[in-house]
C-alpha cells in the first residue's frame, strides 16, 4: 500500500511555532516578575504546569503500553504520542519557578508563613514527615523524576524516528525490551511520587493512599482527550487521510469512556474511604472543598467529569461521531483543568473558587509553549512510523 506523503508529512511554519513558544515564555516570565513574591502566582503556575505536564505523562504511559504489548491498532497514531514526549525537556526547564516559590507553596518548609501562626513543636504529624518532606530530598526526587522522564522521552523518540530512516526492525525489539524492563515500574512510581510531592504535599497533614493512581488516572484521561482532539484536527487539515479512520476514533472513544469511569471510580473510592473512616486529618481535605463556591466546583466535577462524559460516550454511535468526540475531548480537558485547580487552589483561596490574572497568564503561557512546541516537533518527522510492519494492519484495523 502506497501512502501519499502529503498525508503524513506535517508542514507548519517553523517561525510561527517558535514565535508561539517565545510568546508563551515571555508571558510566563512577565507573570513571574510581576508575582515574584506573590503566593497567588506560584499556585496558579503550579496548577497550569501540572495540567500540561500531566498530558505528557499520560502520553508516556500510553507509549509504554503500546510497545510493551506490541499493540497493532495504535501503530497509526503512535507517532503523535511520541511527539508529545519531546516536550519534556522544555517542561523540565519550566519547573524552576516552582523551586523558586517553594517557600510560598509548601507548608512543610520552615519559613512558610504557616509557621507564624502555628506551633511546630505541637505538630507531630509534620515532624514525622520531615525525613521525606524536606527541601534537599524534594529537589533530589524532582531531579530523579525529570532525568527518568527525559531519558524515556529521548530514547523512545529517537529510536522510533531512526526506524523510519533505517528500517531496521531491531529498533522495535529494542523498544519492546525497553518498555518491558523495570523502567516501566520506575515510570509508574515516579508519576505517583510526583503527584505526592507537588500536589498532595500542599496539604502536608492530609494523606490518601490512592493519590498516586488518582494522579495517574487523571493524567491518562487528559492525554487521551488531547490525542483525540489532535487527531481530529489533523484529519480536518487533510493529514492522516486513509491512515486514521473512524475505527481508530471508535477505539479512542472506548478509551475515553473507560478512563472516565476508572478515574471516577478512583476519585469516588478515595472519597468513600475517607467519609467512611471519618478521621479528622483526612476529612479536612474534603471539608475545605465544601465551602463557598468550592462546593459548586465539587458538584461540577461530579457532573462534568463523570455523568456528562459517561452518558455522552456510552453509546457505540457516539464513539464513532467525530464531532461529538471532538467536543468531549475539549470538555474533558476543561474538566481536567478544573480538577487540578480543585486539588491545588483551596490551599490558597480558602473560601471561594477564583480565576485571576495569574491563572490566565499561566494557562495562556503554557498553552502557547505546548502548542508551538508540539507543532514544531510534529513537523520534524513523519506523522506515522513508516517502516513499522504493523502499520498496514493498523490502517486496516476494524472494530467488530
Amino acid at each position, binding site marked *: 500500500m502506497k501512502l501519499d506523503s502529503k498525508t503524513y508529512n506535517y508542514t507548519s511554519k517553523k517561525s510561527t511555532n517558535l514565535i508561539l513558544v517565545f510568546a508563551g515564555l515571555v508571558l510566563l516570565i512577565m507573570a513571574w516578575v510581576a508575582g515574584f513574591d506573590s503566593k497567588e502566582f506560584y499556585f496558579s503556575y503550579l496548577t497550569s504546569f501540572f495540567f500540561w505536564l500531566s498530558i505528557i505523562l499520560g502520553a508516556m504511559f500510553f507509549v509504554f503500553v503500546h510497545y510493551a504489548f506490541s499493540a497493532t491498532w495504535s501503530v497509526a497514531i503512535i507517532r503523535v504520542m511520541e511527539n508529545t514526549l519531546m516536550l519534556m525537556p522544555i517542561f523540565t526547564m519550566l519547573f524552576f519557578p516552582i523551586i523558586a516559590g517553594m517557600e510560598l507553596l509548601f507548608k512543610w518548609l*520552615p*519559613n512558610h508563613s504557616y*509557621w*507564624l501562626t502555628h506551633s*511546630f513543636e505541637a505538630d507531630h504529624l509534620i*515532624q*514525622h514527615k*520531615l*525525613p521525606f518532606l*524536606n527541601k534537599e530530598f524534594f529537589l533530589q526526587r524532582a531531579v530523579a523524576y525529570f532525568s527518568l522522564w527525559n531519558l524515556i522521552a529521548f530514547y523512545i523518540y529517537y529510536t522510533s524516528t531512526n526506524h523510519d530512516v533505517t528500517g531496521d526492525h531491531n529498533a522495535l525489539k529494542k523498544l519492546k525490551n525497553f518498555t518491558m524492563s523495570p523502567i516501566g515500574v520506575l515510570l509508574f512510581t515516579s508519576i505517583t511520587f510526583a503527584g505526592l510531592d507537588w500536589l498532595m504535599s500542599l496539604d502536608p497533614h492530609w494523606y490518601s493512599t490512592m493519590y498516586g493512581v488518582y494522579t495517574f488516572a487523571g493524567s491518562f484521561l487528559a492525554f487521551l482527550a488531547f490525542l483525540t482532539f489532535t487527531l481530529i484536527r489533523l484529519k480536518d487539515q487533510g493529514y492522516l487521510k486513509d491512515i486514521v479512520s473512524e475505527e481508530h476514533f471508535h477505539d479512542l472513544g472506548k478509551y475515553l469512556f473507560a478512563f472516565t469511569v476508572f478515574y471516577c471510580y478512583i476519585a469516588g473510592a478515595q472519597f468513600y474511604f475517607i467519609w467512611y473512616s471519618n478521621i479528622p486529618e483526612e476529612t479536612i481535605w474534603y471539608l475545605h472543598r465544601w465551602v463557598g463556591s468550592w462546593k459548586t466546583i465539587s458538584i461540577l466535577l461530579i457532573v462534568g467529569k463523570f455523568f456528562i462524559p459517561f452518558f455522552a460516550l456510552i453509546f457505540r454511535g457516539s464513539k464513532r461521531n467525530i464531532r461529538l468526540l471532538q467536543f468531549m475531548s475539549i470538555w474533558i480537558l476543561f474538566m481536567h483543568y478544573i480538577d487540578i485547580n480543585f486539588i491545588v487552589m483551596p490551599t490558597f483561596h480558602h473560601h471561594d473558587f477564583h480565576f485571576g490574572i495569574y491563572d490566565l497568564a499561566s494557562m495562556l503561557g503554557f498553552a502557547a509553549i505546548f502548542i508551538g512546541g508540539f507543532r514544531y516537533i510534529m513537523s520534524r518527522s513523519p506523522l506515522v512510523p513508516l517502516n513499522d510492519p504493523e502499520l498496514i494492519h493498523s490502517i486496516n484495523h476494524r472494530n467488530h
Partner: protein
Amino acid sequence: MSNEGYEKKDIPVKPVLIGGLLFVLTVIVTIVLLYEYYVRVVDASIYEFKLSKKPKKLIELRKSENETLNSYKVIDPEKEIYHIPIDRSKELLLDDQKK
C-alpha cells in the same frame, strides 16, 4: 484446521518464579532501607527544620524596621513634622549641605 493464534506452550514457570521472587525481595529490601533511613534522619530533620526557621519575633522586628525606614507618615500636622523614608532623608540632608 489452522493452529494460528493458538498457544502451543504453557507459560515459562522458571522466569516467572524468579521474577516474582526478585520483586518480593526488592519490596522487602526497599521497606527495610526506607525504615533505616527514616530512623536515622528523623531527629536530624527536626533539628534542621528548627535551625532553618526564622524566629517569629525576628520576622516581626524586621517587618517593623522595614516599615519605619521606608514609609511616609504624618507625625504632627500642626508642627509640620513628617516621617519620611531614610533614603529620602539622606538625599534631603545632602541637598541642604550643598546649599
